[in-house]
Protein backbone atom coordinates (compact mmCIF):
# COMPACT_ATOMS: atom_id res chain seq x y z
CA UNK A 1 0.00 0.00 0.00
CA UNK A 2 2.84 2.35 0.81
CA UNK A 3 4.16 1.76 -2.67
CA UNK A 4 0.78 2.60 -4.19
CA UNK A 5 0.64 5.80 -2.13
CA UNK A 6 4.09 6.71 -3.41
CA UNK A 7 3.02 6.05 -7.00
CA UNK A 8 -0.08 8.19 -6.49
CA UNK A 9 2.08 11.01 -5.11
CA UNK A 10 4.39 10.77 -8.11
CA UNK A 11 1.39 10.86 -10.43
CA UNK A 12 -0.10 13.91 -8.73
CA UNK A 13 3.16 15.85 -8.57
CA UNK A 14 3.99 15.09 -12.20
CA UNK A 15 0.56 16.30 -13.24
CA UNK A 16 0.95 19.45 -11.17
CA UNK A 17 4.23 20.24 -12.94
CA UNK A 18 2.88 19.53 -16.39
CA UNK A 19 -0.33 21.41 -15.66
CA UNK A 20 1.51 24.48 -14.43
CA UNK A 21 4.01 24.32 -17.29
CA UNK A 22 1.33 24.03 -19.95
CA UNK A 23 -0.69 26.79 -18.33
CA UNK A 24 2.42 28.97 -18.44
CA UNK A 25 2.91 28.10 -22.11
CA UNK A 26 -0.61 29.13 -22.92
CA UNK A 27 -0.46 32.36 -20.89
CA UNK A 28 2.87 33.14 -22.53
CA UNK A 29 1.50 32.70 -26.04
CA UNK A 30 -1.94 34.20 -25.67
CA UNK A 31 -1.14 36.63 -22.87
CA UNK A 32 1.78 38.12 -24.76
CA UNK A 33 -0.56 38.66 -27.69
CA UNK A 34 -2.95 40.50 -25.38
CA UNK A 35 -0.13 42.67 -24.03
CA UNK A 36 1.18 43.51 -27.49
CA UNK A 37 -2.29 44.05 -28.95
CA UNK A 38 -2.06 41.06 -31.28
CA UNK A 39 -4.57 38.26 -31.75
CA UNK A 40 -2.17 35.42 -31.06
CA UNK A 41 -2.61 31.72 -31.61
CA UNK A 42 -6.17 31.03 -32.75
CA UNK A 43 -5.97 28.79 -35.83
CA UNK A 44 -6.01 25.13 -34.90
CA UNK A 45 -9.49 23.86 -34.23
CA UNK A 46 -11.15 27.21 -34.82
CA UNK A 47 -12.93 25.99 -37.94
CA UNK A 48 -14.39 22.70 -36.70
CA UNK A 49 -17.97 22.54 -37.93
CA UNK A 50 -20.06 19.39 -37.93
CA UNK A 51 -21.25 20.23 -41.43
CA UNK A 52 -17.73 19.56 -42.70
CA UNK A 53 -17.69 15.97 -41.49
CA UNK A 54 -17.50 13.45 -44.35
CA UNK A 55 -20.56 11.40 -43.36
CA UNK A 56 -24.31 11.89 -43.49
CA UNK A 57 -25.71 10.54 -40.21
CA UNK A 58 -27.79 13.42 -38.85
CA UNK A 59 -28.00 11.94 -35.35
CA UNK A 60 -24.23 11.57 -34.99
CA UNK A 61 -23.73 15.12 -36.21
CA UNK A 62 -26.28 16.37 -33.71
CA UNK A 63 -24.55 14.52 -30.89
CA UNK A 64 -21.13 15.81 -31.90
CA UNK A 65 -22.31 19.41 -32.08
CA UNK A 66 -21.51 20.37 -28.43
CA UNK A 67 -18.13 18.64 -28.65
CA UNK A 68 -17.27 20.71 -31.70
CA UNK A 69 -18.50 23.87 -30.05
CA UNK A 70 -16.12 23.26 -27.13
CA UNK A 71 -13.28 22.50 -29.55
CA UNK A 72 -13.96 25.73 -31.41
CA UNK A 73 -13.81 27.76 -28.22
CA UNK A 74 -10.57 26.03 -27.21
CA UNK A 75 -9.21 26.67 -30.68
CA UNK A 76 -10.06 30.37 -30.69
CA UNK A 77 -8.48 30.67 -27.23
CA UNK A 78 -5.36 29.09 -28.72
CA UNK A 79 -5.27 26.17 -26.30
CA UNK A 80 -5.28 23.49 -28.99
CA UNK A 81 -2.62 25.41 -30.85
CA UNK A 82 -0.17 25.84 -28.00
CA UNK A 83 -0.61 22.57 -26.13
CA UNK A 84 -1.37 20.00 -28.82
CA UNK A 85 -0.26 21.16 -32.24
CA UNK A 86 3.09 22.62 -31.14
CA UNK A 87 4.03 19.40 -29.34
CA UNK A 88 3.08 17.22 -32.31
CA UNK A 89 4.95 19.53 -34.66
CA UNK A 90 8.07 19.38 -32.50
CA UNK A 91 7.91 15.59 -32.35
CA UNK A 92 7.75 15.32 -36.13
CA UNK A 93 10.60 17.73 -36.84
CA UNK A 94 14.07 16.67 -37.85
CA UNK A 95 16.43 16.15 -34.95
CA UNK A 96 19.52 18.08 -35.94
CA UNK A 97 22.94 17.50 -34.37
CA UNK A 98 25.86 19.81 -35.24
CA UNK A 99 28.61 18.05 -37.14
CA UNK A 100 31.58 16.74 -35.18
CA UNK A 101 29.92 17.14 -31.80
CA UNK A 102 29.29 14.20 -29.48
CA UNK A 103 25.69 13.07 -29.98
CA UNK A 104 25.43 11.88 -26.40
CA UNK A 105 26.34 15.26 -24.91
CA UNK A 106 24.03 17.01 -27.33
CA UNK A 107 21.16 14.84 -26.13
CA UNK A 108 22.19 15.13 -22.49
CA UNK A 109 21.91 18.94 -22.36
CA UNK A 110 18.11 19.27 -22.64
CA UNK A 111 17.67 16.39 -20.19
CA UNK A 112 19.95 18.15 -17.70
CA UNK A 113 17.97 21.34 -18.18
CA UNK A 114 14.65 19.65 -17.35
CA UNK A 115 15.31 16.77 -14.97
CA UNK A 116 16.75 18.71 -11.97
CA UNK A 117 13.79 21.08 -12.03
CA UNK A 118 11.36 18.16 -11.96
CA UNK A 119 13.34 16.43 -9.19
CA UNK A 120 13.29 19.59 -7.09
CA UNK A 121 9.49 19.36 -6.91
CA UNK A 122 9.96 16.20 -4.84
CA UNK A 123 10.74 18.08 -1.63
CA UNK A 124 7.90 20.62 -1.76
CA UNK A 125 4.68 19.62 0.01
CA UNK A 126 1.66 20.57 -2.07
CA UNK A 127 -1.06 20.26 0.59
CA UNK A 128 -1.39 19.89 4.36
CA UNK A 129 -1.09 16.44 5.92
CA UNK A 130 -4.22 14.33 5.95
CA UNK A 131 -5.39 10.88 7.00
CA UNK A 132 -6.95 8.63 4.40
CA UNK A 133 -8.01 5.06 5.16
CA UNK A 134 -5.86 4.92 8.29
CA UNK A 135 -2.74 6.15 6.52
CA UNK A 136 -1.14 9.42 7.47
CA UNK A 137 -0.28 11.00 4.16
CA UNK A 138 2.09 13.89 3.59
CA UNK A 139 1.64 15.38 0.13
CA UNK A 140 5.35 15.38 -0.61
CA UNK A 141 7.43 12.71 -2.35
CA UNK A 142 10.59 12.96 -0.26
CA UNK A 143 10.58 14.50 3.22
CA UNK A 144 14.26 15.21 3.71
CA UNK A 145 16.07 17.16 6.37
CA UNK A 146 17.49 19.83 4.07
CA UNK A 147 14.57 20.65 1.77
CA UNK A 148 15.58 24.19 0.79
CA UNK A 149 19.19 23.19 0.20
CA UNK A 150 17.95 20.40 -2.05
CA UNK A 151 16.13 22.89 -4.25
CA UNK A 152 19.26 25.07 -4.38
CA UNK A 153 21.37 22.05 -5.30
CA UNK A 154 19.05 21.04 -8.11
CA UNK A 155 19.08 24.61 -9.37
CA UNK A 156 22.84 24.55 -9.52
CA UNK A 157 22.84 21.28 -11.49
CA UNK A 158 20.49 22.85 -14.04
CA UNK A 159 23.37 25.16 -15.02
CA UNK A 160 25.09 22.22 -16.67
CA UNK A 161 22.26 21.71 -19.15
CA UNK A 162 22.82 25.25 -20.40
CA UNK A 163 26.62 25.05 -20.38
CA UNK A 164 26.69 21.73 -22.25
CA UNK A 165 24.12 23.04 -24.74
CA UNK A 166 26.31 26.05 -25.37
CA UNK A 167 29.32 23.83 -25.90
CA UNK A 168 27.72 21.25 -28.21
CA UNK A 169 26.22 23.97 -30.39
CA UNK A 170 29.67 24.28 -31.96
CA UNK A 171 29.23 27.91 -32.91
CA UNK A 172 29.91 31.28 -31.37
CA UNK A 173 26.30 32.15 -30.63
CA UNK A 174 25.72 29.02 -28.60
CA UNK A 175 29.03 29.33 -26.81
CA UNK A 176 28.43 32.97 -25.88
CA UNK A 177 24.95 32.10 -24.68
CA UNK A 178 26.25 29.24 -22.56
CA UNK A 179 29.01 31.37 -21.06
CA UNK A 180 26.63 34.21 -20.28
CA UNK A 181 24.18 31.82 -18.68
CA UNK A 182 26.88 30.21 -16.51
CA UNK A 183 28.21 33.58 -15.34
CA UNK A 184 24.74 34.94 -14.68
CA UNK A 185 23.45 31.94 -12.77
CA UNK A 186 26.53 31.67 -10.56
CA UNK A 187 26.47 35.40 -9.80
CA UNK A 188 22.84 35.36 -8.75
CA UNK A 189 23.02 32.04 -6.92
CA UNK A 190 25.03 33.74 -4.15
CA UNK A 191 22.34 36.29 -3.42
CA UNK A 192 19.69 33.57 -3.69
CA UNK A 193 21.47 31.34 -1.17
CA UNK A 194 22.00 34.20 1.28
CA UNK A 195 18.37 35.29 1.08
CA UNK A 196 17.14 31.76 1.65
CA UNK A 197 19.47 31.50 4.65
CA UNK A 198 17.82 34.64 6.02
CA UNK A 199 14.40 33.05 5.77
CA UNK A 200 15.73 29.82 7.30
CA UNK A 201 17.01 31.89 10.24
CA UNK A 202 13.54 33.34 10.75
CA UNK A 203 11.73 30.00 10.61
CA UNK A 204 14.47 27.97 12.26
CA UNK A 205 14.05 24.99 9.94
CA UNK A 206 15.10 23.78 6.50
CA UNK A 207 12.05 21.66 5.83
CA UNK A 208 9.38 23.17 3.60
CA UNK A 209 6.54 21.64 5.56
CA UNK A 210 7.65 23.22 8.85
CA UNK A 211 8.27 26.54 7.10
CA UNK A 212 4.74 26.63 5.73
CA UNK A 213 3.27 25.58 9.08
CA UNK A 214 5.24 28.38 10.77
CA UNK A 215 3.37 30.92 8.63
CA UNK A 216 -0.05 30.00 9.94
CA UNK A 217 -0.59 33.44 11.50
CA UNK A 218 1.80 35.79 9.70
CA UNK A 219 3.09 35.38 6.18
CA UNK A 220 6.83 35.55 5.63
CA UNK A 221 6.51 38.47 3.27
CA UNK A 222 5.50 40.68 6.21
CA UNK A 223 8.37 39.37 8.34
CA UNK A 224 11.07 40.21 5.82
CA UNK A 225 9.92 42.14 2.73
CA UNK A 226 13.50 42.90 1.67
CA UNK A 227 14.23 39.20 1.30
CA UNK A 228 11.10 38.83 -0.80
CA UNK A 229 12.11 41.58 -3.21
CA UNK A 230 15.66 40.25 -3.52
CA UNK A 231 14.49 36.69 -4.08
CA UNK A 232 12.00 37.85 -6.72
CA UNK A 233 14.72 39.56 -8.75
CA UNK A 234 17.17 36.70 -8.29
CA UNK A 235 14.56 34.15 -9.28
CA UNK A 236 13.79 35.98 -12.50
CA UNK A 237 17.52 35.97 -13.26
CA UNK A 238 17.84 32.26 -12.47
CA UNK A 239 15.03 31.35 -14.84
CA UNK A 240 16.86 33.34 -17.53
CA UNK A 241 13.78 35.26 -18.58
CA UNK A 242 13.44 38.83 -19.72
CA UNK A 243 14.73 41.28 -18.41
CA UNK A 244 17.52 38.82 -17.60
CA UNK A 245 17.41 36.84 -20.85
CA UNK A 246 20.91 37.71 -22.06
CA UNK A 247 21.84 34.04 -22.49
CA UNK A 248 19.28 33.68 -25.27
CA UNK A 249 19.02 37.33 -26.38
CA UNK A 250 17.47 36.72 -29.79
CA UNK A 251 18.45 40.10 -31.15
CA UNK A 252 22.16 39.39 -30.67
CA UNK A 253 22.68 35.64 -30.31
CA UNK A 254 19.97 34.08 -32.56
CA UNK A 255 18.68 31.95 -29.68
CA UNK A 256 21.73 31.72 -27.43
CA UNK A 257 22.60 28.37 -25.97
CA UNK A 258 19.85 26.42 -27.73
CA UNK A 259 20.50 27.83 -31.18
CA UNK A 260 21.40 24.39 -32.55
CA UNK A 261 18.48 22.54 -31.02
CA UNK A 262 15.41 21.53 -32.94
CA UNK A 263 12.30 19.47 -32.49
CA UNK A 264 11.65 17.76 -29.20
CA UNK A 265 14.99 18.72 -27.68
CA UNK A 266 14.18 22.38 -28.22
CA UNK A 267 10.79 21.83 -26.67
CA UNK A 268 12.45 20.25 -23.63
CA UNK A 269 14.37 23.48 -23.02
CA UNK A 270 11.06 25.32 -23.28
CA UNK A 271 9.45 22.91 -20.85
CA UNK A 272 12.38 23.27 -18.46
CA UNK A 273 12.00 27.04 -18.53
CA UNK A 274 8.32 26.92 -17.68
CA UNK A 275 8.82 24.23 -15.06
CA UNK A 276 11.46 26.53 -13.55
CA UNK A 277 8.93 29.38 -13.43
CA UNK A 278 6.46 27.08 -11.70
CA UNK A 279 9.10 25.81 -9.27
CA UNK A 280 10.23 29.31 -8.45
CA UNK A 281 6.64 30.41 -7.81
CA UNK A 282 6.15 27.38 -5.56
CA UNK A 283 9.25 28.24 -3.54
CA UNK A 284 8.19 31.88 -3.25
CA UNK A 285 4.71 30.91 -2.07
CA UNK A 286 6.14 28.40 0.40
CA UNK A 287 8.67 30.88 1.80
CA UNK A 288 6.70 34.12 1.76
CA UNK A 289 2.99 33.52 1.21
CA UNK A 290 2.24 30.81 3.72
CA UNK A 291 1.66 27.96 1.26
CA UNK A 292 -1.87 26.70 1.91
CA UNK A 293 -2.50 29.10 4.80
CA UNK A 294 -4.65 32.19 4.65
CA UNK A 295 -4.29 34.33 7.79
CA UNK A 296 -7.13 33.93 10.34
CA UNK A 297 -8.76 31.13 8.35
CA UNK A 298 -8.57 27.54 9.57
CA UNK A 299 -8.74 24.71 7.10
CA UNK A 300 -10.97 21.73 7.98
CA UNK A 301 -9.15 18.50 8.83
CA UNK A 302 -9.08 15.43 6.61
CA UNK A 303 -8.87 15.08 2.85
CA UNK A 304 -11.31 17.92 2.21
CA UNK A 305 -9.03 20.36 4.00
CA UNK A 306 -6.06 19.02 2.07
CA UNK A 307 -7.92 19.52 -1.19
CA UNK A 308 -8.89 23.10 -0.32
CA UNK A 309 -5.34 23.78 0.89
CA UNK A 310 -3.96 22.46 -2.37
CA UNK A 311 -6.34 24.70 -4.33
CA UNK A 312 -5.27 27.76 -2.31
CA UNK A 313 -1.60 26.88 -2.80
CA UNK A 314 -2.03 26.40 -6.54
CA UNK A 315 -4.03 29.61 -6.84
CA UNK A 316 -1.17 31.60 -5.34
CA UNK A 317 1.36 29.78 -7.53
CA UNK A 318 -0.60 30.45 -10.72
CA UNK A 319 -0.93 34.11 -9.76
CA UNK A 320 2.83 34.49 -9.25
CA UNK A 321 3.60 32.63 -12.48
CA UNK A 322 1.33 34.93 -14.47
CA UNK A 323 2.94 37.95 -12.83
CA UNK A 324 6.34 36.68 -13.96
CA UNK A 325 5.14 36.26 -17.52
CA UNK A 326 3.66 39.75 -17.55
CA UNK A 327 6.98 41.14 -16.28
CA UNK A 328 8.79 39.27 -19.04
CA UNK A 329 6.63 40.91 -21.71
CA UNK A 330 6.79 44.36 -20.13
CA UNK A 331 10.43 45.11 -19.39
CA UNK A 332 13.33 45.53 -21.83
CA UNK A 333 16.55 43.54 -21.51
CA UNK A 334 19.43 44.66 -19.29
CA UNK A 335 22.84 45.46 -20.67
CA UNK A 336 25.49 42.95 -19.61
CA UNK A 337 27.45 45.27 -17.29
CA UNK A 338 24.18 46.38 -15.70
CA UNK A 339 23.33 42.74 -15.08
CA UNK A 340 26.62 42.04 -13.34
CA UNK A 341 26.45 45.29 -11.36
CA UNK A 342 22.98 44.51 -10.09
CA UNK A 343 24.07 41.04 -9.04
CA UNK A 344 27.41 41.76 -7.39
CA UNK A 345 27.14 45.37 -6.24
CA UNK A 346 23.43 45.59 -5.58
CA UNK A 347 21.80 42.36 -4.56
CA UNK A 348 24.75 40.62 -2.89
CA UNK A 349 25.56 43.41 -0.37
CA UNK A 350 21.85 43.96 0.18
CA UNK A 351 21.22 40.32 1.02
CA UNK A 352 24.33 40.19 3.24
CA UNK A 353 23.09 43.26 5.12
CA UNK A 354 19.63 41.74 5.35
CA UNK A 355 21.11 38.55 6.81
CA UNK A 356 23.12 40.54 9.35
CA UNK A 357 20.16 42.65 10.46
CA UNK A 358 17.85 39.65 10.66
CA UNK A 359 20.38 37.74 12.75
CA UNK A 360 20.85 40.75 15.04
CA UNK A 361 17.11 41.10 15.54
CA UNK A 362 16.67 37.39 16.19
CA UNK A 363 19.64 37.10 18.55
CA UNK A 364 17.96 38.20 21.80
CA UNK A 365 15.03 35.83 21.21
Amino acid at each position, binding site marked *: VEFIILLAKLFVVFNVIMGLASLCTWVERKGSALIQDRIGANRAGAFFYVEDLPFKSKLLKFLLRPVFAVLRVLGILGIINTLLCDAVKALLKEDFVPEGMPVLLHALAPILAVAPVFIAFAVIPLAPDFVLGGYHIRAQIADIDAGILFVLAMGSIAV*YGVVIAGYTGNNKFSLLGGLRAAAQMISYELAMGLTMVTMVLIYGT*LSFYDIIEAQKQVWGVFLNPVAFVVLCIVGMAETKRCPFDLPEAESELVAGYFTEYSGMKFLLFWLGEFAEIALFSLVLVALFFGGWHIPFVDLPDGWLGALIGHAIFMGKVVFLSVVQIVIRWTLPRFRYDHLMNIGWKGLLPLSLLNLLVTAAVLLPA
Partner: protein
Amino acid sequence: MTVIFALLSLLLLATAVGVVAFRNPVHGGLCLVMNMLIVAALFAMLNAHFLAAVQVIVYAGAVVVLFLFVVMLLNAKLERPQFRDKVYAIVGLGTVAVLFFSIFPLMDGAAFGKGAVQSVSLLSQAPIEGTTANLGRILFTKYLYPFEAASFVLMAALVGAVLLSHAKPQKKIEG
Protein backbone atom coordinates in the same frame (compact mmCIF):
# COMPACT_ATOMS: atom_id res chain seq x y z
CA MET B 1 21.83 -0.86 -0.43
CA THR B 2 25.06 -2.78 -0.77
CA VAL B 3 24.62 -3.14 -4.50
CA ILE B 4 23.99 0.57 -4.94
CA PHE B 5 27.02 1.35 -2.79
CA ALA B 6 29.24 -0.93 -4.89
CA LEU B 7 27.92 0.54 -8.15
CA LEU B 8 28.46 4.09 -6.96
CA SER B 9 31.99 3.29 -5.80
CA LEU B 10 32.86 1.76 -9.16
CA LEU B 11 31.43 4.78 -10.98
CA LEU B 12 33.36 7.05 -8.64
CA LEU B 13 36.64 5.38 -9.58
CA ALA B 14 35.74 5.32 -13.28
CA THR B 15 34.93 9.04 -13.39
CA ALA B 16 38.05 9.86 -11.37
CA VAL B 17 40.13 8.10 -14.02
CA GLY B 18 38.09 9.81 -16.72
CA VAL B 19 39.04 13.27 -15.43
CA VAL B 20 42.68 12.68 -16.30
CA ALA B 21 42.25 10.22 -19.18
CA PHE B 22 40.04 12.25 -21.54
CA ARG B 23 41.89 14.24 -24.18
CA ASN B 24 39.09 16.77 -24.42
CA PRO B 25 39.21 19.11 -21.40
CA VAL B 26 35.44 19.62 -21.49
CA HIS B 27 34.84 15.88 -21.16
CA GLY B 28 37.31 15.79 -18.30
CA GLY B 29 35.42 18.59 -16.59
CA LEU B 30 32.13 16.78 -17.00
CA CYS B 31 33.70 13.65 -15.47
CA LEU B 32 34.72 15.80 -12.51
CA VAL B 33 31.08 16.90 -12.10
CA MET B 34 29.96 13.28 -12.18
CA ASN B 35 32.56 12.50 -9.55
CA MET B 36 31.32 15.27 -7.26
CA LEU B 37 27.71 14.19 -7.72
CA ILE B 38 28.53 10.58 -6.85
CA VAL B 39 30.31 11.70 -3.69
CA ALA B 40 27.14 13.65 -2.86
CA ALA B 41 25.10 10.50 -3.48
CA LEU B 42 27.35 8.59 -1.07
CA PHE B 43 26.77 11.29 1.55
CA ALA B 44 23.05 11.00 0.96
CA MET B 45 23.27 7.22 1.44
CA LEU B 46 24.80 7.90 4.85
CA ASN B 47 21.77 10.09 5.64
CA ALA B 48 23.98 13.17 5.67
CA HIS B 49 21.51 15.15 3.57
CA PHE B 50 23.02 18.48 4.51
CA LEU B 51 26.50 17.45 3.43
CA ALA B 52 25.15 15.99 0.21
CA ALA B 53 23.29 19.18 -0.66
CA VAL B 54 26.27 21.37 0.19
CA GLN B 55 28.56 19.14 -1.85
CA VAL B 56 26.32 19.61 -4.88
CA ILE B 57 25.85 23.36 -4.37
CA VAL B 58 29.47 24.24 -3.71
CA TYR B 59 31.47 21.79 -5.82
CA ALA B 60 29.19 20.72 -8.64
CA GLY B 61 27.23 23.97 -8.73
CA ALA B 62 29.95 26.57 -8.44
CA VAL B 63 33.52 25.31 -8.57
CA VAL B 64 33.33 22.97 -11.56
CA VAL B 65 31.02 25.30 -13.48
CA LEU B 66 33.79 27.88 -13.24
CA PHE B 67 36.32 25.27 -14.45
CA LEU B 68 34.15 24.55 -17.47
CA PHE B 69 33.54 28.25 -17.94
CA VAL B 70 37.26 28.95 -18.20
CA VAL B 71 37.91 25.92 -20.41
CA MET B 72 35.18 27.01 -22.80
CA LEU B 73 36.18 30.67 -22.68
CA LEU B 74 39.79 29.89 -23.57
CA ASN B 75 38.49 27.48 -26.21
CA ALA B 76 40.90 24.73 -25.09
CA LYS B 77 41.87 22.32 -27.83
CA LEU B 78 42.34 18.58 -27.62
CA GLU B 79 45.35 17.61 -25.59
CA ARG B 80 47.96 15.78 -27.64
CA PRO B 81 50.00 13.05 -26.00
CA GLN B 82 53.44 14.39 -25.19
CA PHE B 83 56.67 13.19 -23.68
CA ARG B 84 55.87 15.20 -20.56
CA ASP B 85 52.75 13.08 -20.07
CA LYS B 86 54.85 9.98 -19.53
CA VAL B 87 56.94 11.73 -16.89
CA TYR B 88 53.76 12.93 -15.21
CA ALA B 89 52.28 9.43 -15.37
CA ILE B 90 55.31 7.90 -13.67
CA VAL B 91 55.40 10.56 -10.96
CA GLY B 92 51.66 10.27 -10.45
CA LEU B 93 51.71 6.49 -10.17
CA GLY B 94 54.57 6.75 -7.69
CA THR B 95 52.60 9.21 -5.56
CA VAL B 96 49.54 6.99 -5.67
CA ALA B 97 51.63 3.99 -4.62
CA VAL B 98 53.14 5.86 -1.67
CA LEU B 99 49.70 7.07 -0.57
CA PHE B 100 48.22 3.60 -0.94
CA PHE B 101 50.92 1.91 1.11
CA SER B 102 50.70 4.54 3.83
CA ILE B 103 46.95 4.08 4.13
CA PHE B 104 46.95 0.30 3.64
CA PRO B 105 48.33 -0.65 7.08
CA LEU B 106 45.54 1.39 8.68
CA MET B 107 42.89 -0.77 7.07
CA ASP B 108 42.56 -4.20 8.59
CA GLY B 109 41.04 -6.82 6.37
CA ALA B 110 37.61 -6.55 7.90
CA ALA B 111 37.34 -2.81 7.38
CA PHE B 112 38.28 -3.12 3.76
CA GLY B 113 35.80 -5.70 2.53
CA LYS B 114 32.63 -6.62 4.32
CA GLY B 115 33.26 -4.22 7.20
CA ALA B 116 33.02 -1.10 5.05
CA VAL B 117 29.72 -2.23 3.60
CA GLN B 118 28.43 -3.05 7.06
CA SER B 119 29.38 0.32 8.45
CA VAL B 120 27.67 1.99 5.50
CA SER B 121 24.43 0.14 6.12
CA LEU B 122 24.73 0.82 9.86
CA LEU B 123 25.25 4.53 9.31
CA SER B 124 22.38 4.73 6.87
CA GLN B 125 20.05 3.49 9.61
CA ALA B 126 21.07 6.37 11.86
CA PRO B 127 18.25 8.80 12.75
CA ILE B 128 17.51 11.45 10.14
CA GLU B 129 16.07 14.04 12.50
CA GLY B 130 18.13 17.15 13.08
CA THR B 131 21.37 16.14 11.41
CA THR B 132 21.75 19.68 10.08
CA ALA B 133 21.20 21.23 13.51
CA ASN B 134 23.68 18.85 15.12
CA LEU B 135 26.28 19.57 12.49
CA GLY B 136 25.90 23.29 13.07
CA ARG B 137 26.13 22.88 16.84
CA ILE B 138 29.35 20.83 16.64
CA LEU B 139 30.84 23.23 14.09
CA PHE B 140 30.31 26.24 16.34
CA THR B 141 31.29 24.67 19.67
CA LYS B 142 33.79 21.85 19.48
CA TYR B 143 35.35 22.76 16.13
CA LEU B 144 34.99 26.53 16.36
CA TYR B 145 38.71 27.33 16.09
CA PRO B 146 39.46 25.09 13.08
CA PHE B 147 36.31 26.45 11.43
CA GLU B 148 37.34 30.06 11.95
CA ALA B 149 40.89 29.30 10.87
CA ALA B 150 39.61 27.73 7.65
CA SER B 151 37.41 30.74 6.91
CA PHE B 152 40.36 33.04 7.60
CA VAL B 153 42.54 31.13 5.14
CA LEU B 154 39.81 31.29 2.51
CA MET B 155 39.40 35.02 3.10
CA ALA B 156 43.14 35.53 2.68
CA ALA B 157 43.03 33.58 -0.59
CA LEU B 158 40.11 35.70 -1.79
CA VAL B 159 41.84 38.98 -1.01
CA GLY B 160 45.04 37.68 -2.61
CA ALA B 161 43.20 36.72 -5.78
CA VAL B 162 41.60 40.16 -6.06
CA LEU B 163 44.95 41.83 -5.45
CA LEU B 164 46.76 39.71 -8.04
CA SER B 165 44.09 40.04 -10.71
CA HIS B 166 44.25 43.82 -10.59
CA ALA B 167 47.02 45.08 -12.81
CA LYS B 168 49.72 47.12 -11.18
CA PRO B 169 48.69 50.77 -11.01
CA GLN B 170 50.23 52.40 -14.04
CA LYS B 171 52.19 55.57 -13.69
CA LYS B 172 50.29 58.58 -14.81
CA ILE B 173 51.43 59.85 -18.15
CA GLU B 174 52.65 63.35 -17.69
CA GLY B 175 51.46 66.13 -19.91
